[in-house]
């Protein structure tokens, strides 16, 4: 697909999402979540379409997208691994867990492995504070991380 065609494709799929949701009260966040679900990230080419559809300036839309940690500017890896780094997990050694995972995957937080297998992110609390240290792999929750569980996770994202 040429760049031009890809951008037209994004615009038309974005427009369909906007049409479906713009009747909501305060529709921008639900629209952005849907776009991210559709494309795996919020493509730059979608922003002017949203601005037109909701009668906002492009700057306003950019301001909202860039404010929230969840919205990605580019696609994530095939797996997304989030490690909780908040206080309850700190008290149970989340620092050491993060160091080990980074070493095994060869990437730092906010990075994606070269082969596109996994994106590693910190998260500040998953509400699993009585089962620390905790993590979320592709939306599935994992508690009481230990060496064995870390190795299982690494093997899974690599497979």
């Amino acid at each position: 697909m040429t760049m031009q065609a890809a951008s037209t494709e994004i615009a038309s799929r974005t427009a369909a999402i906007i049409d479906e949701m713009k009747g909501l009260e305060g529709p921008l966040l639900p629209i952005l979540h849907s776009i991210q679900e559709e494309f795996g990230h919020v493509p730059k080419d979608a922003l002017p379409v949203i601005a037109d559809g909701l009668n906002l300036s492009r700057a306003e839309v950019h301001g909202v997208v860039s404010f929230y940690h969840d919205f990605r500017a580019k696609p994530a890896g095939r797996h997304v691994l989030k490690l909780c780094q908040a206080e309850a997990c700190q008290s149970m050694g989340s620092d050491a867990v993060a160091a080990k995972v980074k070493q095994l995957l060869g990437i730092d937080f906010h990075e994606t492995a070269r082969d596109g297998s996994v994106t590693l992110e910190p998260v500040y609390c998953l509400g699993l504070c009585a089962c620390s240290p905790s993590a979320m792999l592709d939306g599935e929750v994992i508690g009481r991380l230990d060496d064995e569980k870390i190795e299982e996770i690494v093997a899974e994202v690599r497979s």
Partner: protein
Amino acid sequence: MIPRIYIPADSGALALGAEKVAKAIEKELQERGVEAKIVRNGSRGAYFLEPMVEVATDKGRVAYGPVKPSDIKSLFDSGFLTGGHHKRWLGAPDKIPFLAKQTRLTFARCGINDPLSLDAYKSLGGLRGLQNAVAMAPADVVKQVTESGLRGRGGAGFPTGIKWKTVLDTAGAQKYIVCNADEGDSATFADRMIMEGDPFVLIEGMAIAGIATGATKGFVYIRSEYPHAVATMNKAVAIARKAGVLGLNVLGSPNAFDMEIRVGAGAYVCGEETSLLNSLEGKRGVVRAKPPLPAIQGLFGKPTVINNVISLASVPIIMDKGAAYYKDFGMGRSRGTIPIQIAGNVKQGGLFETAFGLTLGEIVDDIAGGTASGRPVKAVQVGGPLGAYFPRALFDTPFDYEEFAKRDGLIGHAGITVFDDTADMLKQARFAMEFCAIESCGKCTPCRIGSTRGVEVLDKVAAGIEAEKNLALVTDLCNTMKFGSLCALGGFTPYPVMSSITHFPEDFKPAPARVAAE
């Protein structure tokens, strides 16, 4: 009767392997040709026993936990479907000391049944509060909530009834009920547990709030880190709508009330009420200056009740059993019960709902059973990332809004994180500043810039560069942040920082001296 097996589908239980346990039980049932009904309940909150599997027997429920998939064969061999003995046997769940010692009002039903069974909800007293409310004048509902002494459980502790009265008294063609389910504080999971384990109690509480104030539309703003809570709430709202609990005629009354579930996008600051309102409107989650109060100009500029999940979920029992019943629990100006969330380095972590007034020491030593690591307790952070660190010397502090304030702390959303003696309090103080820098909405200078400067100055202290002078600078900076910030993020970040410096000065000594001392 076909045996019934209860396996929690609460996130905490899932994180500890409940799904694998459920699969292993299904497989075992099939292999043995035994018929049984599996119910996926919520969690009762004793996470040190999760996954806790229960079986309904002639003599009532019998619990087993923590169950591993490898236990399943021997459980069946021990006759667990009839409550047989096994090394994981815990007996009747309500006799387990951690659960038996609690006073469950808000969490009375949580973890007992299938959270999406409206019949089960009604069989345990559900909807009685709403039934009473629809038969009353709105002002009387507000009066009952005010008299119960219920205060905002999100952290600020503002009297719920007074907030409602302001909205009731403010004219508006459209009013809203907004539920703050952006439970971002580390050590807190009460909102998540109730949404996953007893969603109808929140829906009922919101409908009562709507009837009491004349609001016809509600929103629950749930953080995106809680996908299971989002899914359960969405299903529960659809069921409630179908059953006439929500809609144009709530429980057949002339009152209309409906609601929507909305999902946040990973911004901690959106737990602050005005920033949450901006986010719901589709804007950046930037804090608004008050006044105007949200009760007067809230969502889309309309009069809005914005309450925490636990505040709203505590309303049905108040409307069912009366203000006096609820008010009888507690101490001083802190009335009723509070779900204390025991987290971090503890032997017995989980949710412990109790009347206000237990001391911090009782919670940490007796109920939590000390640290998981077996090492001495060094510090306990009460109230999440913006709460103070308490040393053992302050363990006599009773769990009460005012008593914690007197000791330069706060109870916040009632999460407590226990640290053992390996904790480095300088590192914790630095993290508090770093977290504030990551999550600041950027609106006010003390928070936006102060947090970054705080990290830099604390790094200098850690490096032993003019430690005394730099600690004085941090103290001054905290003072500016505390009094100069618009909201609790910048305003309360000084609590963990200053309490670390005050109570654990040895951790802030210059590096060479710290090495020499060891």
